[in-house]
Each structure stands twice: as C-alpha cells, then as structure tokens.
C-alpha cells in the first residue's frame, strides 16, 4: 500500500487537471461537434498570463486577471475563428481550430522568445509541501481533485437549473431546432467557450503551480490527453469527461509505476483507439443514429 499510494495520489491529481481541460472539450463538442484543437493552447496561454501577472502584481489582482484574460481569449477565438465558419463543412472548422492552435503557439513563441517562462512566484499556500500518509506532496495535489469536483457540481447545477443551461442543453440536442425555438445560439456558443476557458484557466493555475515553468508546448500533451479523456468518458457528457480524466490520470501513473514509462503516452492513445473502435460513444455518451 505504501508503495503504490504515491502513484495513486499523483494519478488523482493529474486526473483532476485533465478533467478541468476535458470539460472544455466536451462542452464545445457537445454543441458544435468540433474538436477544439486550440483548447490546449488556451490552457497554455493561461499559464503564461499567470507567470507574467504574478511577477508584476499582487496575487489578488493577478489571479482574477488570469481568469478574465483566458475567458476573453476563448471568447475571441470563437468569434473570430469559428463563428464565420458556422455553415461551412465540419472539416473547415476543424482546420480552423488547428490553424488557431498554430497561431497561438507561434505568437506565444514570439512573445516568450521560445524559452520556457519560469514560474517565479507560485501561488502561496497551495504550492507548499504537506506530508500525507508517509509521503510528501504539494498541497495543490490534494486541492486539485476537490476543487475539480466542486466546480463540476457547480457546472452541472448551472446546466440543469438555469436558463442558459437549458439553452445549452437544447443546442446540444438539436442545433437548428433550438435556433428556431428562439435560443440565441451565438450567445449559447460564446457561453460554452467562456465556461470552457474559465475551467481551463483554473486548471492551468493548478497545473503550473506544480511545475517550474511554462513552455509553449506545455498545452499540447495535457490538451490531447484531456481530449482522450473526454472521448473515453463519452464526448458531450460532463460526468463522462471527469470520470474519463481521472481514469486516464490514474492509468498513466500506474503504468509509470509498473515500469513501462516508455509507453505512458502511447498507452493513452492506444486506449483512445480501442474505445473508439469498441464503444465509440464512450462510457456515458449518448448513441446518435444517422438519418438516411
């Protein structure tokens, strides 16, 4: 038990971080049927903003600023790069997403000079070490899953019990009909991106509290894995994304613990392919039938 405990704690923490990103994927996919390839980069930008703002201003200004900036970025990306393509084929939108990701990376690259930016002033309290059952870990490791679950509960409440939430559910069910029924579809989509980016920003703050620097490629892998988590849990389903993320986080760390470190990333993708082939709707996904 003492042997595997650190792996499990770590796995849950990693899973929590993936979960916060995965929700962004799953929300957007649920409504637009779009894999938002730029989401991982939004996550990375949030990290960069955090690095810059925490060095320049006090924590109580800097952290809200990170949230606002990230949310704004998500909003702008949607308006600028996805909205004009609303009636275009799905492939065009996906290409646009890849283009946005490329642009964000190159822009960040230009601004940072291609050098990882060190996290010089980490968020206090959660970046401190604590002892837990004989191992030591940063407090953020323990905070992450708790905060993740709290946020998810809030989100589920928002979706099930508020007007905008209802509109989101309607849009996810049937985009066109919802539009005909008077749902302001653009507002709903913007809201989706705002929520997704907000959660990514929170995830980013937690994630980069654990790590010493933000590199422009930092968003890529967590982004892809969070996406895999979303697919694994059943894309479009929020509980699915969260459960999927925790499972992937755990599996990954356990695989490392077993000594197959070479394949810890590859495993995630193998899992993805297997899930897609065996049960394309994932753990909690709804079955969609095509009309002929």
């Amino acid at each position, binding site marked *: 038990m003492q042997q595997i405990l650190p792996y499990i704690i770590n796995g849950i923490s990693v899973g929590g971080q993936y979960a916060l990103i995965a929700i962004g994927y799953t929300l957007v996919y649920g409504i637009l*049927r*779009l*894999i938002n390839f730029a989401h991982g980069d939004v996550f990375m930008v949030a990290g960069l903003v955090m690095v810059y703002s925490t060095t320049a201003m006090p924590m109580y200004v800097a952290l809200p600023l990170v949230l606002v900036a990230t949310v704004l970025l998500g909003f702008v990306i949607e308006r*600028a*790069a996805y909205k*004009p*393509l609303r009636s*275009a084929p*799905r*492939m*065009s939108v*996906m*290409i*646009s997403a*890849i*283009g*946005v*990701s*490329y*642009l964000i990376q*190159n*822009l960040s*690259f*230009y601004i940072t*000079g*291609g050098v990882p930016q060190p996290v010089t002033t980490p968020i206090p309290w959660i970046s401190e070490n604590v002892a837990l059952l004989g191992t030591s870990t940063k407090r953020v490791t323990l905070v992450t899953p708790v905060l993740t679950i709290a946020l998810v509960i809030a989100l589920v409440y928002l979706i099930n019990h508020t007007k905008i939430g209802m509109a989101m559910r309607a849009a996810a069910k049937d985009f066109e009909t919802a539009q005909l029924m008077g749902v302001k579809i653009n507002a709903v989509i913007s809201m989706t991106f705002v929520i997704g980016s907000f959660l990514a920003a929170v995830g980013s703050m937690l994630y980069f509290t654990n790590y010493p620097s933000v590199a422009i490629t930092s968003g*890529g892998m967590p982004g*892809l894995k969070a*996406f*895999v988590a979303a*697919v694994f849990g059943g894309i479009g389903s929020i509980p699915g994304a969260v459960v999927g993320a925790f499972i992937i986080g755990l599996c990954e760390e356990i695989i490392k613990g077993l000594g197959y470190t*070479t*394949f810890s*990333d*590859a495993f*995630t*993708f*193998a899992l*993805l*392919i297997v899930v*897609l*082939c065996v049960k*394309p709707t994932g753990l909690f996904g709804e079955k969609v039938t095509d009309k*002929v």
Partner: protein
Amino acid sequence: MTSTKKKTIFTAAVLLILLAACVVVDLTLPGYHIVVTVIKKATVYSLVAVSMNLLNGFTGLFSLGQAGFMLLGAYAYGVLTIPVAKRASVYQYFDGGAIKFSLPEIFSGALGDTVGTVAGMLAALLVGGILAALMAYLIGLPVLRLKSDYLAIATLGFAEILRAFFQWNTLGPITNGSNLLKSYPTFSHATPYVILAGLMIAFIVLLINSTYGRAFKAIRDDEVAAEAMGINLSKHKRMAFIISSFFAGIGGGMMAMYMGTIAAAPFKSTLTYEILLIVVIGGIGSITGSILASFLYIFSSEWLLRGLDSGKFLGISAPAIFKNGFRMVVLSVVIMCIVLFFRRGLMGDKELPDLLDRRPKKRKKEAAGK
C-alpha cells in the same frame, strides 16, 4: 477536343520549364546552396501534401496520421541504406545493430557502383512505402469505420504510438532507439528529388482521373449515394488510405534523404498539421494547389522570410519587431486569413490545365448574365 490538346501541351510545357529550371539550378549552384536545399524540402513536402490531399481532399477522409507513415518510410530508408562499414559507429550503443546488409551495396555488387547505389536507394524508398502501406492496412481495419473527427483523432493517436515504438530501446538494434540514424547515401542535387516526386505525383494524378479516383470523389461528395451506386465504401476508403500512406511513406524516405539524419522526434503531430495547412493553403482538392503551396510555404518559411527573424526584412530594419519567431507569426496569420476568408485556397479545386479556360468561362457567364 482541341482544348484538351491545348491543355496537355500547356501542362507539359509548364512542367518541362520547371524541370529545366531545376536542372539549371543544379548545374549552376552547389548542392549546399540554400536554393537547392529549399527546392529539395519543398519537393518532399509537395509529395506528402499531395498524398494527404488524395485522402482528405479527394476521398473526404480526415486523417491526421501522415507523420506516422512518414516516420515508417524514413526509418525504412535509413535502416536499409546505411553502409555496412558505418553501422558499427551509427549503432554505437547497439553493437552495430541487427541488420548487417545495405541495399545500395547489394545492388552495387550486381549493377555497378553508381547504378547500383541509386537502385538500392530507390528500393529502400519502395520498401518504406510498402511498410507504410501495410501499416495503413492494419490500422485501417478498425479505424476507417470511424467518422470524420474521430478518424482524425484516432490516426493522430496512432502516429504518436508509432513514434514511441521507434524510440523504444528494445527495438534499438533496428531503429537505433532514441539515437540518430545517419551516414546513409543521399542525392546532393535537387533534380533527382524533383523527378522522383514528380513521377509519384503524376501517378496520383492519373489515379485521381481514373475510374477509381472518380469513385473516391463520389464517396467524398455523398457516401450514401456512392454506396447505393455500387461503390464498396470500405474497400475504396481502405484503398485511398493505403495508397495515400504508401506515398507518405516514400515522402518520409525522401525527407530522410533531405535531412541527412533520422530521428523520430521530427515526425510529430506538428508535422502533420503543417502539411494539412499547406493542403488548405493550396486548396483542398487541387493537386496543383498542394504543390504550389508547398513551394510557397517552404520557400518563405525556410528562406525568404528569414529576415523577419533576424531584424532586417526588405530593407526595413526593425530589430525590436523582427525578432525570433516573427516569421512564423506572419505565416500563421496568413494561414488563418486563408482558412477564414479564402476558404478555397490558392487554387480551389482547379488544376494547372484549368488555368487556361478560366477566362472564356467567365465571359460566358457574363454573357449569360446580360
């Protein structure tokens, strides 16, 4: 019918001029010259972009596994062509590796030095292509049933898995693990690249204009109708996937020739994205567009726009703005503009010969309008 003839002559003339230009470049400039280098790289990218277009543009299968197939091709080429004498030093951590022969040397024995080496190199490329095609067949069995974006993400994942395998030390005696493969023969001139890629692309063009290519386009336009008209979806999708991967594999081998060293690291999803964006710039569904875009993209990113990174561009000196990475920012902004505002890309779905009949068609339309 004369218009067809005219088009053929036009196309042939343009291609001949381009080939001649390439030969002239080779004769006047040394092999290490930047122009030769970028022509080589652009040619390789053209081939890969066209192979991707065959799949994404003509068959409507959104696959992002190109980098994985290129990886296979590149490694096959390197592993099979490194001279036996150099294997000990290349595979320094793996006792000279498990493979103790080199195709160019085997062929040299039978055909003489020059011819044999070239034949061996081509054979190695071919093996790379075939390996990629085989892998595509295996991957295609489960993956091709998936729909657009799921297919994209599954193929992307597959490419990542493949990369991990090639870096795995247990396979080191063959792949050299994480270490570079090098010292294999390459072409120092650009013309062989152009001719090779040209032949491959010509084959793809012929295929696209054959009955099979038409079937691919039917699948892209409307799968249900295609199936109802007797086109076997899974067979044709698999065929497109395999053929595209075959050429991506050969493209990977040529990429290896260009790079001079092989490692798995360059064959990341970024490479696939780059090629996808090139296809989009050129116009999804246009071979000419893909080639054109490859050349424009590589020429500008590797050569013409370098000034944007080093402070001075077109005579304007602004070190504060023109610093490292600005080149890629400019390029990606241009790409986004194309994606958003010129969705058809440079060429739309037009090909080189179609450039001839642009004007008359427009006039006709105007006349009809009046």
